[in-house]
């Protein structure tokens, strides 16, 4: 067995346990609490960044504690996990910094910071876990956190939507747990195998149900647009950094790295993803609620990520990871911009907006650049992701499905420009909000800059993504 890497433990436990201290700190000082929250998330960022050199060299770090009865606390950091953890925690950190400006006027801030940091901690635990049961536990912690965060404003509507999100994702999670039990009885342990083994179709389908519900993919997707009632930093967190990326990550972890799905399974996933990408892109074109439009866009883009993963070749896997990173920056930026707009105009209905370019110029430009990245316009990061996953699908022989995604990409251009048009351009319809606070605007500028940098400096993220892709397929470099 390898040496224990305590850093892994720190990355996971610092936010998970540290989050519990936040309400206590909040009782003393709000500023101290905010600082501690940011610090805890930064611990995850820095910790994951420190793992990059090992990951690049193809060395896998582990931590393991056995508690008997087959129950253990086993963490593992390969290139895939490090990439995912770094992307998630970095975006979360920016969203958290933005939150300090956004959430400052609302009640229950202690709960907010507790839930957000716990959420990110659970994400770290999930990403690094090497055991199915551990993964399930962290999975459900994220469900609880998202339930509380979506219903943060406590109005009947919010609570109803939070319940919906919780019920749909937990229904999926229970199906997945059943799948895990079947896997466990097949292999005699809940540890993820070091070399991939085959999995039977029923177990694979059950696990897929969990993944699709968490990643808000058709037909389990409608909770995600409904979750737009949450505060904007929360929606950003759900869409860009943590929640919906869990599903795609677990797909990569289980069906690419650890288990060999049955024949035809990947094609099924691609077909589901294609339908999902097309339906949600179409819905985004008709929706009037700003946040719901961006939410449908997320559902659509998740389809592209699944396409890359299910294509299963090196190009597709690397492309999916780059897509996750680029989409995270861009979608986080879009939601945080939406937050600034909502803050300023007190509405989410784009039919009432217009001409906001004049009062919110920085937000408008950031919004546009993030939208460009989602559309896949160079030199932003989304360009590379989109090319790589579509190319990978073609290379794996799925030309027709690729064409469906091409149609989805067309619609992406249309609905994002429609959104930009109706919000920022044209004549003002009486609503004119001021620009956000410096912290909020600063955060979105950073996200837009990262969206741009992830394209201009694609070389470096691509190195790690490529390492992850070849490691996932067991190709030695």
């Amino acid at each position, binding site marked *: 067995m390898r040496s224990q890497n305590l850093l892994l433990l720190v990355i996971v436990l610092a936010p998970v346990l540290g989050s519990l201290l936040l309400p206590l700190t909040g009782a003393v000082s709000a500023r101290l609490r905010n600082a501690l929250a940011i610090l805890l998330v930064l611990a995850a960022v820095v910790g994951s960044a420190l793992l990059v050199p090992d990951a690049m060299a193809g060395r896998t770090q582990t931590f393991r504690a056995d508690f008997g009865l087959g129950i253990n606390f086993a963490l593992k950091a390969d290139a895939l996990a490090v990439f995912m953890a770094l992307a998630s925690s970095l975006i979360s950190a920016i969203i958290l910094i933005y939150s300090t400006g956004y959430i400052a006027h609302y009640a229950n801030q202690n709960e907010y910071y507790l839930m957000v940091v716990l959420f990110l901690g659970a994400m770290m635990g999930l990403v690094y876990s090497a055991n199915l049961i551990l993964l399930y536990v962290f999975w459900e912690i994220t469900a609880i956190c998202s339930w509380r965060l979506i219903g943060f404003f406590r109005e009947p509507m919010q609570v109803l939507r939070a319940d*919906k999100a919780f019920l*749909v994702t937990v229904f999926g999670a229970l199906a997945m747990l059943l799948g895990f039990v079947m896997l466990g009885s097949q292999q005699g342990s809940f540890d993820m195998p070091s070399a991939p083994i085959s999995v039977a179709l029923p177990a694979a389908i059950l696990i897929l149900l969990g993944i699709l519900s968490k990643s808000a993919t*058709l*037909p389990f*997707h*409608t*909770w995600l647009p409904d979750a737009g009632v949450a505060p904007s930093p929360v929606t950003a967190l759900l869409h860009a950094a943590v929640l919906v990326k869990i599903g795609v990550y677990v797909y990569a972890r289980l069906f690419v790295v650890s288990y060999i799905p049955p024949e035809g399974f990947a094609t099924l996933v691609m077909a589901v993803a294609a339908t999902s990408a*097309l*339906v*949600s*892109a*179409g*819905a985004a*074109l*008709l929706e009037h609620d700003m946040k719901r439009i961006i939410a449908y866009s997320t559902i659509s883009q998740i389809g592209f990520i699944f396409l890359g993963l299910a294509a299963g070749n*090196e*190009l597709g896997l*690397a492309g999916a990871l*780059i897509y996750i990173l680029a989409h995270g920056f861009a979608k986080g930026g879009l939601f945080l911009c939406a937050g600034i707009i909502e803050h300023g105009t007190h509405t989410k209905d784009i039919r009432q907006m217009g001409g906001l370019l004049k009062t919110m110029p920085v937000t408008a430009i950031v919004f546009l650049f993030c939208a*460009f990245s989602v*559309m*896949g*316009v*160079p*030199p932003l990061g989304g*360009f*590379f992701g*989109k*090319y*790589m996953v*579509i*190319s990978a699908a*073609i*290379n794996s022989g799925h*030309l027709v499905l*690729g*064409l469906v995604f*091409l*149609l989805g*990409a*067309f*619609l992406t*251009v*249309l609905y994002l*420009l429609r959104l*930009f*048009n109706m919000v920022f*351009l*044209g004549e003002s319809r009486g609503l004119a909000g001021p620009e956000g606070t410096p912290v909020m605007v600063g955060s979105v500028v950073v996200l837009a800059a990262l969206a741009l940098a992830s394209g201009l400096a*694609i*070389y470096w993220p*691509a*190195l790690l993504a*490529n390492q992850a892709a070849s490691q996932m397929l067991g190709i030695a470099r």
Partner: protein
Amino acid sequence: MSAIMMWAPILIPLAGGLLVLPMRGKSGLREIVALLATLANLVVAIANFNSVGTWTGQWVGHGLDIVLLNYQFSAFILAAAASFALLVCLFCFRFMREKTSANQFFAYMLISLAMVDGAVLADHLVTLLFFWEGLLITLMGMIAIGRPGAFKTAVKAFVIVGISDLCLMFGMAMAGLASGTLVMSKMHLPVTDAFNALAFVLMMIGAIAKAGSMPFHSWIPDAAVDAPLPFMAILPASLEKLAGIYLLSRISLDLFQLTPESWLSPLLMIIGAVTILLAVMMALIQKDYKKLLSYHAISQVGYMVLGIGTALPVGIIGGIFHMINHAMYKSCLFLTGGAVEKQAGTTDLAKLGGLARKMPITFACFFVAACSISGVPPFNGFFSKELLYDAALDRHFIFYIAALGGSFLTAASFLKLGHAAYFGKRSSEHDNVREAPITMLLPMLVIAAACIFFGVHNSWPLRNLIQPVLGARLEGHDFAGWPHSMRLVWLTVAVLAGAIMNHIAGATVYGSGINAVDHIHYAPLLKPIYEQAERRAFDPYEIMLDVAAFIARGAWSVDRAIDWVYNRLAVGAAMLGSTFLKLLHTGDYALYVAWALAGAAIVVWYMVS
């Protein structure tokens, strides 16, 4: 060739653009920076002209590298692009002076130049796509800074070009799979099977959409009205034509082997012929200087696409020659339009008239460029059109008829434009109109002179720039000099004479130049069609939006149906189940015991059997 010289055509304009972008004042510094950047770019382009070199850099992995190749064809396009950029920049020196958004204009223009240079230098499909799609943002920006409300056109342009770029991306990925490499100079795909043919069509869409061919054209006339005028001269008239036709040639000649036998050849020719005719029909009835020109910018692409589509050496040479000729006369024409707009304050033909005396040099340049585009000997457009006629006739006479008909209407519409703007009655508003300043005249004069040079001395461009593109496929032909078929020349002259007579007759009947083609505009069958077209009933963009809305409505109902399952069906089913269970809880002790016993019996039965 050193890496610095390889990258200079991309980095110099890019750096210039980024430098100019924050310069908001009206100090004139931004104009000087832009001018220096374009000048330096031209110097580099000339210095690189005869060198061959490659540069390869690792990029994304998986064979997605940055590969640049400077060779004869790309060097030719680079030099042409650099010349137009410099001249338009010089023109803008005064033209954009008072505009507050001039810093953005110069910045976007320089970055666009960098992107075009990058796309032309690229020898790897993904490198090409990166620069190619990189034009999108600057395209949108340049239109958006036009008159108020121009953003709608900017979005339209972005959507049309963006969607065609996505097609290009898809086609590239297919071509990469088919040939096993993404390096362009290593690809030689036959177009015999369906997979390769689809890849060709998708890539072709990207190329001809950039060039502005139908059905991807409809943003151009809108931009002519909304965008700053030099935009029209630099992008739709020159840089985009150069890039689009360059790529179409590369696709047809190198990446794929387009043969006259393939069904793709007639497809391209039909697109070309339809574009020529429909766009020029629209040009004919325009009452605005810039808008009239913009329809010709579409129509002329048809000739190039038709020529390359013939897949014959004479057609390809004619197409590429027409591309460079078009970039010259069309940018010159747009610049004359700009001079008129600047000096007379309008481009509405109804308000213009008699400018030939006020602005003689502008008129002279207009005259040369108008003769070129109409194919009057011995200007450059005549020679490229004759080559195209030759090729079209070789394939099928119907294409020749279309091309010749297009020439008739082109000549008719330029007679109308010239008559309405430069002759006829002078409106009293324009008494104080004076000739444009020298910085605006100089670019026009240079281009007009080049139009004459490329015509009279066409052996120089043909032998040095264009024929080497075909290399061995030229099969020893030499198309320089006077057209070899005098019969076709006579037909051309007859058509031009017909156009002049048509104009004289029309102008006499209706009494003015602007109404000289009213007998065509209001002809019995054409009138309702024109009315529909003016109402954008045939705008492919609007049709595409309708299709998208149709798809969206379908998607929306699927989405709502699924949501209904969660919000209504699932809740209803749960309520129904619990209501039923509630009925069972009567509070009757004996009934509960009976249920328990029945349950136990089932368990026992299950365990025993």
